[in-house]
C-alpha cells in the first residue's frame, strides 16, 4: 500500500463534493476519550478488522471520533494506523487483497454498506497525503478541481478564495492564482492540497503524516492550520511525530503492533498518564 500517490484521479475523487445530506448522530458514550454527552460523533468504528490476504492488519478496533475535534492516530511503523485511516473513506477499496470487516459509521450509515457510493463518501471525507501532491495545474484550478467535477453551480472563484483563506494560503497566492501549483514551496503546496480538500466542503479531513515531508516552519504552519480547521471540520491525522500529536490533537489513539488500538483518550491523559504500560513504554521511547 502506498500513501504517497501524486496527482491521481483517485485522490481527486476523495476531494470532490456532493450535496448529500449526511446526518451525524448524537452519541453519549462517557469518558476515556470517546464522545461525551455534549459532543456529536462524526465517525464511529465498531469491531473493525482489516486483512491483507491472510494477514490481519487491524484487529477489532472500535472508536468514536467526535465532531470538529482533532484526533491523532499514533503508533510504530506497521501498527495499522494508516490502514485504519484509509478505511474511513474506503481508500483501501483500491487494494484487491484488502478485506474490511466490522462497521465504520458515518452520517448514520456503515460506509461499507452495499449502497454506499465510495466516490460520494470521499467527497464528504477528504484526504491529505504525506507528500504534497498538487495537480500540474494552476493554483486556481487545483482548488476548483473538485468543484468542477461535481458541477458546482455556485461562485467558483469565491469558493476558491474562501478555501485558500481557510488554508492560510490566500495572502501568499492571491496575486498569482494562475501560476502553477507546482511552483509553490513544499509547505505552500501542502496548504494548497488542504485548500483543495476543503473546497468541496467535506465534514471530515483525513491526514496521513501531512507534515513529514516539510521543514519545521512549514510544518508549524500546517499545525496552526489544523487547529483552525477543527472549528469547521473533524480532523483525523496519522503522525509519527508524537510531539506533534501532543501539540495539535484533542484525542489520541495509540495503535501498537498487531493492529490493535491499545488506548484512546484525551491527548493530555495519553501524554501525562496513560493507562496501559505498553502505551507508556511506546510514548516514552522504551519500545517501538
Amino acid at each position: 500500500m502506498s500513501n504517497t500517490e501524486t496527482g491521481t484521479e483517485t485522490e481527486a475523487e476523495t476531494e470532490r463534493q456532493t450535496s448529500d445530506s449526511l446526518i451525524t448522530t448524537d452519541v453519549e458514550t462517557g469518558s476515556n476519550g470517546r464522545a461525551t454527552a455534549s459532543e456529536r460523533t462524526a465517525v464511529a468504528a465498531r469491531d473493525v478488522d482489516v486483512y491483507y490476504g491472510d494477514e490481519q492488519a487491524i484487529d477489532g478496533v472500535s472508536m468514536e471520533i467526535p465532531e470538529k475535534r482533532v484526533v491523532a492516530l499514533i503508533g510504530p511503523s506497521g501498527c495499522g494506523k494508516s490502514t485504519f485511516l484509509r478505511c474511513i473513506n474506503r481508500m483501501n477499496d483500491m487494494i484487491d487483497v484488502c478485506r474490511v470487516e466490522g462497521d465504520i459509521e458515518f452520517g448514520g450509515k456503515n460506509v461499507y454498506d452495499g449502497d454506499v457510493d465510495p466516490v460520494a463518501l470521499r467527497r464528504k471525507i477528504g484526504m491529505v497525503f504525506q507528500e504534497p501532491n498538487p495537480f500540474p495545474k494552476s493554483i486556481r484550478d487545483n482548488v476548483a478541481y473538485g468543484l468542477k467535477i461535481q458541477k458546482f453551480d455556485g461562485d467558483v472563484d469565491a469558493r476558491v478564495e474562501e478555501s485558500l483563506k481557510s488554508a492560510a494560503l490566500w495572502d501568499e497566492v492571491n496575486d498569482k492564482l494562475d501560476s502553477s501549483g507546482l511552483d509553490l514551496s513544499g509547505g505552500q503546496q501542502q496548504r494548497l492540497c488542504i485548500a483543495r480538500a476543503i473546497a468541496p466542503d467535506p465534514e471530515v479531513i483525513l491526514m496521513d503524516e501531512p507534515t513529514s515531508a516539510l521543514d519545521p516552519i512549514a510544518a508549524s504552519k500546517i499545525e496552526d492550520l489544523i487547529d483552525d480547521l477543527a472549528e469547521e471540520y473533524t480532523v483525523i491525522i496519522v503522525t509519527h511525530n508524537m510531539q506533534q500529536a501532543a501539540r495539535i490533537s484533542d484525542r489520541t489513539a495509540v495503535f501498537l503492533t498487531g493492529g490493535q488500538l491499545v488506548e484512546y483518550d484525551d491527548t493530555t491523559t495519553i501524554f501525562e498518564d496513560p493507562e496501559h504500560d505498553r502505551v507508556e513504554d511506546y510514548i516514552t521511547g522504551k519500545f517501538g
Partner: protein
Amino acid sequence: MPRENYQRRLDALRADVVAMSDLVRERYDAAVEAAATGDETLARAVIEGDEAVNERYLALEDECVELHALQQPVASDLRLVTASFKIITDLERVGDLATNLAAYGTDDAGLHPAIAFRRLAGAAGEMVADAMAAYEAGDTDACRRIDARDDDLDERCRRASEAVVRNLLEADRARSDENRTATNNADDLATALDEVSSALLAVRDIERVGDHAVNIAARTVYMVDNDDELIY
C-alpha cells in the same frame, strides 16, 4: 531499549536530586547543632556552605530544562522531570532555612530554652529525609504519612511559640516585681526580646522546613500516580 542515553539521564537526575537532598540534610543537621549550641564556627560553615547547595540546585535546574528542551519527556518521564524540578526548589529553600537557623544561635547559650529545639528541628529534618526516601522509592503511602505528620509539627511549633512568649511575659513580670532600676530593666528586656525573636524565627523556619517536606511528598505523589491531592 531505545533511547538508552535518555533513560540514563533520567536515572541520573533522580540520583542527583537524592544526592542534593543528602547535602541539604547535612547542612541542616549542622545548622541545628550550631543553633542549639551557639557554635559560631559551625554556623559560619553552614552559611558559607550554602553556595554549594545553590550550585547543585542550578546544575539540576539546567538539567531539567535541557531534558525538557531536547528530549521532550512524556508520561511518567515528564512527571519525573517536572516533580524533580519542583523538588529541587524545595530543597534549595531548606538549605536557605538552614542558614537562617545557623545564624540564630549566635552565642554560647544557643536558642531559647523554652523550645525543645533539637527535637522540633529534628522532626522537621526527618520529614525531609523521609520525603526524599519516598521520592527515591516512589512510595506514595509514605508521602501521605508525611502530610499527616506535618499537622503534628505545626501544632508543636504553635505550642513552642506560645511557650516562648509566655516565658517572656513571665520574666518581664518578675523583673517588675523585683523593682529594678529602669536602665537595667530596659537592658534585660532588650536582651530577652532578641532571644525571643530568634526563637520565634527559628520555630517559624522549622515549620517551613516541614512544609517543604510536604511539598516534596506532594510532588512525589504526582510523579508516581499523576495525583495532585497533596499539592496545595
